[in-house]
């Protein structure tokens, strides 16, 4: 039986997904639901996006054979270099796709949430490129720990609104962006930064990030044995998995942030510890207490510090198509240092979670492992040096 891992006509992946939005957002979400596939399939849209991805982002990004890493682990290890994208992470693939969509919908104002600041920078970049007003919501704690990205967004002309509610991180920034959209329903498009939120966002963002696995397929001879990616909301992971989902010969691995450990309260390991419920207008798995109140997560990496996960991942977890694991703050830090010293690449703390999983898996000499290096570590230098040097 062929299993379908993609979204159904009602916006669900099995029991997960949907659009649990208040009536105030119904027209906005409905407009997107009714138009996104048509717009994404328009020749002119595809041509413009393709051109930008090549000339502006620098795609295709290399698939780099990591010789010293391979020797160390005793297998063939490849890094998909999303860190070499303009702005330093995969987030730009989605931001450019959505800004072109927003233009087609005649929107004149863009809002976005950001955790690590990578999606904020990508969105501010896309807005500067198109000359559109841009407003970025960012948790006050993240404004502090990702200062370089805050400065970049300011340079790019975006307004940054620090969010003081809740845990002052990505979840709360997303809440505030959704509230902004409720208050500005006509002229504003909300560029969500991951495969989360109400339908059609998880599917739309997945389609924009699917270019990652499309390129890997072209760049790698034969199938990889494993594709490994870190998971915050899950967009770089879905992008890296997308064209392999129906190929069961390829093992897909998602790596969540365990924070200080899955047996502590300071964790963001959603699929390991979470239960089914609703967050940011979609049915998925999330960290919540028995009353359904959302639990504040923890990760040293701002981009993974999120109590939910995209609904498609919840479905891929339930159907066991993808294996999900978690690594701690410390394991990620060590992996970041290891890659820096052995390959001359300083990874984002998010991506370091995917790298750290190499120490936890059983590796065979015949394995061909692709790791999605979702971003670079410039933004994390302060955290990295404070903890490692």
């Amino acid at each position, binding site marked *: 039986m062929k299993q379908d891992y993609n979204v159904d006509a009602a916006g669900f992946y099995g029991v997960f997904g949907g659009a649990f939005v208040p009536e105030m957002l119904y027209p906005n979400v409905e407009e997107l639901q009714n138009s996104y596939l048509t717009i994404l399939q328009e020749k002119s849209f595809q041509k413009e996006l393709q051109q930008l991805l090549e000339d502006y982002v620098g795609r295709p990004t290399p698939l780099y054979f990591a010789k010293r890493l391979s020797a160390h682990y005793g297998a063939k290890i490849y890094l998909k270099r999303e860190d070499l994208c303009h702005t330093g992470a995969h987030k730009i693939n989605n931001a450019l796709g959505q800004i072109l969509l927003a233009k087609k919908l005649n929107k004149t104002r863009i809002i976005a949430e950001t955790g690590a600041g990578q999606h904020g920078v990508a969105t501010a970049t896309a807005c500067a490129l198109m000359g559109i007003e841009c407003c970025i919501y960012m948790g006050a704690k993240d404004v502090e720990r990702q200062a370089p990205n805050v400065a970049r967004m300011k340079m790019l002309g975006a307004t940054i609104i620090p969010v003081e509610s809740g845990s002052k991180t990505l*979840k709360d920034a997303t809440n505030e962006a959704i509230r902004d959209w409720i208050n500005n*329903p006509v002229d504003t498009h909300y560029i969500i930064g991951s495969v989360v939120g109400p339908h059609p966002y998880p599917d739309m963002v997945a389609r924009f990030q699917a270019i990652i696995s499309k390129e890997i397929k072209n760049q790698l001879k034969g199938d990889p044995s494993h594709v490994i990616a870190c998971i915050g909301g899950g967009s770089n992971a879905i992008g890296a998995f997308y064209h392999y989902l129906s190929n069961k010969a390829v093992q897909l691995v998602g790596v969540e942030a365990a924070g200080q450990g899955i047996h502590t309260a300071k964790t963001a390991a959603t699929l390991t510890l979470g239960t089914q*419920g*609703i967050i940011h207008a979609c049915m998925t798995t999330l960290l919540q207490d028995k009353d359904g109140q959302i639990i504040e997560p923890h990760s040293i990496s701002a981009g993974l510090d999120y109590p939910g996960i995209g609904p498609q991942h919840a479905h891929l977890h339930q159907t066991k198509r993808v294996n999900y694991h978690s690594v701690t703050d410390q394991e990620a830090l060590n992996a970041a240092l290891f890659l820096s010293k052995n390959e001359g690449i300083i990874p984002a703390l998010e991506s370091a979670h995917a790298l750290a999983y190499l120490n936890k898996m059983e590796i065979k000499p015949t394995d061909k492992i692709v790791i999605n290096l979702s971003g670079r570590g410039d933004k994390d230098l302060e955290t990295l040096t404070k903890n490692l040097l």
Partner: protein
Amino acid sequence: MQLKEIFKNRKEPILNIYFTAGYPALESMPIILNSLEQAGVDMVEIGMPYSDPLSDGPTIQKSSAIALKNGISTSIIFEQLAKCESKIPKIMMGYFNAVLQFGVEKFCEKCQQNNIQGVILPDLPIPVYQEHYQTTFEKYGIAPIFLVTPETSEERIRYIDACSTAFIYAVSTSSTTGAGTGIQSAAAYLQKLQTMQLNNPILIGFNIGSKADFDFASQYAAGGIIGSAFIKQLENSTTLENDIQKFIKNIRPKN
């Protein structure tokens, strides 16, 4: 009194007051209910605090966070209601996830036991309600209350009217709660609603904070709902009873 009768028998505009359960103190709800009943309020909307209230502005975000810190939960709300003597007609408002985790059937059963006649869950889509929960709501006699906004199309307003059984909650402006912009700018939209001759009566909510706002809303609908402005009144209150009497007197001087 049943919701239907309240709307049928009304002699003056219906005043519906929203408050957050567990705020300002864990045990405030019984006092608030009694005071509102004595002040002649027609019905109340009990807010179930949620950690991430997406449709709410700063005032209700804050009251919800404090209530949760005070230790309120869905089960405690029902425990308090069971002990409460006030007979004032009640509906409940909250976010769907909290009800989902409590158990929808158990929730409806508790509502019935405690004389809760209607429930507003703004983030529960109508098709999901109809497919999974309508029979349960009907079994326990709980009316689902749906929202319309200035951006809701006429076709969809008619659809929402057809799905409703008690009243329609008309959000006055495209905003989160407590935007404080007043509702005078909503005249054209409210007039449109009025001339549509819907089957269900309408209560207007969001941004009603003063007597002027309430009177304005009442021209177009069966009445209005006051939330954030009432919560603000409780914020610095030392005697809830007095402050509530005073607040309601301001809205409805003749009672």
